């Protein structure tokens, strides 16, 4: 594994080279928020560009273009990745989740979203989708994360408005919500 997920050589998308059309585009099938999308992209297009420009999923946003700010974070098979660094053609055969995939089918908010609303853990909120998805991954990776572990995990997501105090509160609250939800489910 690399920071971006499986190494290129392990990526099935690389197994079969595909010829580009006259416009330099190849066909790619992406699985985003549980739905399949077939798009024609140029090989240098990043997942970020394709999510925004082709799939019109505008909750994923560019902040730096070099994987340093976390604003474009999405989940790839549950792991947070910078979609500005991942080429769309390499994102096939992955289960991708964007902020649009956090709400339930009935429009209900995810526990992490609820916690962020409860604590107003944002100001301009440009970075918020990235923080929400990184937090989703954190709650799976380290369910009992201490405040210091939360800070370590979220150090790659930048909030220039500096809403960090409320973000930490919200993440710890989300942790509680998820845990009490689990406990509730187990007791039934």
């Amino acid at each position: 594994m690399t920071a971006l997920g499986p190494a290129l050589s392990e990526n099935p998308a690389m197994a079969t080279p595909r010829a580009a059309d006259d416009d330099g585009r190849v066909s790619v099938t992406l699985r985003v928020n549980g739905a399949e999308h077939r798009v024609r992209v140029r090989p240098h297009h990043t997942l970020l560009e394709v999510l925004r420009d082709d799939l019109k999923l505008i909750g994923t946003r560019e902040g730096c273009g070099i994987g340093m700010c976390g604003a474009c974070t999405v989940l790839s098979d549950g792991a947070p990745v910078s979609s500005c660094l991942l080429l769309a053609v390499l994102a096939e055969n992955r289960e991708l989740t964007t902020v649009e995939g956090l709400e339930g089918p009935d429009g209900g908010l995810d526990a992490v979203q609820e916690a962020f609303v409860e604590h107003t853990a944002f100001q301009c909120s440009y970075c918020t989708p990235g923080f929400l998805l990184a937090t989703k991954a954190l709650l799976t990776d380290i369910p009992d994360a201490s405040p210091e572990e939360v800070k370590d995990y979220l150090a790659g997501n930048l909030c220039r408005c500096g809403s960090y105090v409320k973000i930490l509160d919200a993440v710890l609250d989300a942790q509680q919500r998820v845990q009490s939800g689990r406990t509730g489910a187990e007791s039934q």
Partner: protein
Amino acid sequence: MTVVESRPRFSGMIDARERVTGRVGYTIDIELPGMLHAKLLRSISPHARIARIDTSRARSLPGVVAVITGADLVNQGDLFPWYGPVFRDQPVLAVDKVRFVGEPVAAVAAVDLDTAREAVSLIDVEYDELPAVFDVDAALADGAPILHEGPPRLGQTFADVIVNASGDSNICNHFKLRKGNIEQGFAEADHVFEDVFTSPAVQHVPLETHACVAQVKAGQVTVWAGAQIPFIVRTQLAEIFKIPATRVRVVVPTLGGGYGGKCYPKIEPIAAVLAAAARRPVKLHLTREEEFVTITKHAMRIRMRTGVRDDGKIVARQSICHFNTGAYADIGPRLIKNGGYGTGGPHAIPNVWVDSYAVYTNIVPAGAFRGYGISQAAWAYETQMDMIAERLGLDPYAFRQQNLLRDGDTVMTGEPMEDSHFGELLETAADKIGWDFNGWDVPPERHGNKVRAKGLSCIIKGTVTPSTSTAGARLNDDGSLDVLTSSVEMGQGVKTALAILAAERLSLPVGMVSVSEPDTSVTPYDQQTSSSRSSFSMGNAVGIAVDEVRRQLLEQAADLLEVAVDDLELVDGAVQVVGIPKPALTYGEVIRRSRTGNLLGNGTFATKGGLDPDTGQGIGSVHWHQAAAAAEVEVDLETGRVDLLNYHAGVYAGRIINPVQAELQTEGNVAFGVGQALFEEMIFDHGQLQNGNLGDYMIASIKDMPKQIDLNVLEHPEANEIHGIGETSLPPVMPAIGNAVYRATGVRITDLPITPEKVLRGLREREAPEARSAAADGSAR
């Protein structure tokens, strides 16, 4: 005094759901039918004559719709291709000369970004290099190349601007303040201290970089832009196109951060002239690297002389301030006023003399930045306060308290201080941090290789004066209220704040109030969304507009109910007859039955003031923003690393509108200040920015925050005035940390940021004499 109201207050953001679902729309999310994408070619030279530009290969690339250069705009004849909020010195695209690395030289509109990018790479430019200057000393040296020759081209600008510029040197503007008699003041002083302080250029780094969608259709120029001051963008686009302001429409969706960097036109002129050339809508969205060469905080050097009597009373202060304003004036000519008078500080000093200069150099233009000159000024005076306290053997807390402005003292701009809370803020800060000064010789608390100590600071900041806000209010026939305003939402929560204020004023639930986005074709004038003024200035304008609606509502209801207006009151969306505690008519019923359609109110709120151009005396600010801070740091003596253990931020809010937002703004200022205190610095080499990306330029992450943060958002509702708090708690951060680092290590850093390298170098210099004497004794280390 913190007041707990019995009535629950709305706390949060009215569009929170949109913000956590990714649906809140920014300018970058706007798409129009037929929209093209723009890319810019930027200067690679800091100062050069443009000998030749060949755009032919770019123009012939399939998919390219328009390519324009500065020469094209001039030759077109029907445009005035210059802009700037004070001087019209900045070309939309470089004309004849380039003046900094990164200056836009040509613009391309194409069917997609790939094509636009390729087209830019096909433009050939030949530069004839000119001598360049990068710092104020070089710019002011004899024989320095002059960036802008001749007197500045003036245009409509802000009422508070003072212009004192000749155009025969690189001095872009000069602000003077003369309070009392400076010579007499220094004569009275028993001690005179002179020190030099510097702070570097830093970048705003809004996570949403500048973006603009422009459309020119049927003689109407429309831009959707992340712009903090939509009405200045409108005025300047009207100037550029030589059309009436009414034919320019500026719409501002919510911003992904602004911090001053999105004040005044930046990329809107380019997007608009490109859309005109292409005859199709154009989107221009800067990359992070481009954002870094668009606008910065001013690098500044202050030489500060302060005269103090034996009893600790400050009697004179003279400041010579040089702001490096970069290649174009932007708002520099105005900012040097605030940064200049700001050096007077929150101290009652009878004699103050300031010369403050904006200086042109061949680097990225500097402009408005959260703090607006006060961060640079406060870094100087609050650091010097501790240096003076040490030289006189005084407790820095007591020395500050002795000199702080109290009600009735005159501030540096000459007006009497009112509603002062500096002493109270500083006292709380000292209490909360556990201020325990026992003398300058007492060694700091030591844990292994780490030392701990505390520092204080206290600052004053004005808000732009005079200033004007206008607003509209419309009560609809279902009892809901529209607030029409041109205040820009950029994360500070202005829409929520205005909704709360309007709802309170008309006894409505906050959920029944909608607040508009700025749209200059529809929403009334506002001077600016900056200077921490919207809650105060626009809040008052909205209040007046809603009061007008309220008056009409009561009159209509009195007619319908056949009672006197004085016998009516408004309770939770309904009109009641006094003494009968049940709704007589809902607001909607009043409007429907009176057949008024809706009730409209307008509000105009304007403050008076301004400074004399020769003395800088007058009314500097309609009221004064006040903040104090205390920091406890831990410094690693082996690495020079500074960790923040505890931080207390105290700020005067007058009256809090939205508690959580007040906390967020204050915590955000701490995050902003931590970066500027410890690591943020734009590094230029011969005008070329060396760290213009988020890999090389660090901003504060969650791990950089102080381990403990304590807030004191101070309310005095009896003063009946809202004080903006968007910036006030930022300037104290840097000196509070610097003063704590000094007390921990004995290393006095006067040039921001306080990097581990500087701390270590300082520690070594301090150790060096001891090491030498130890070596002389023959003892091994």
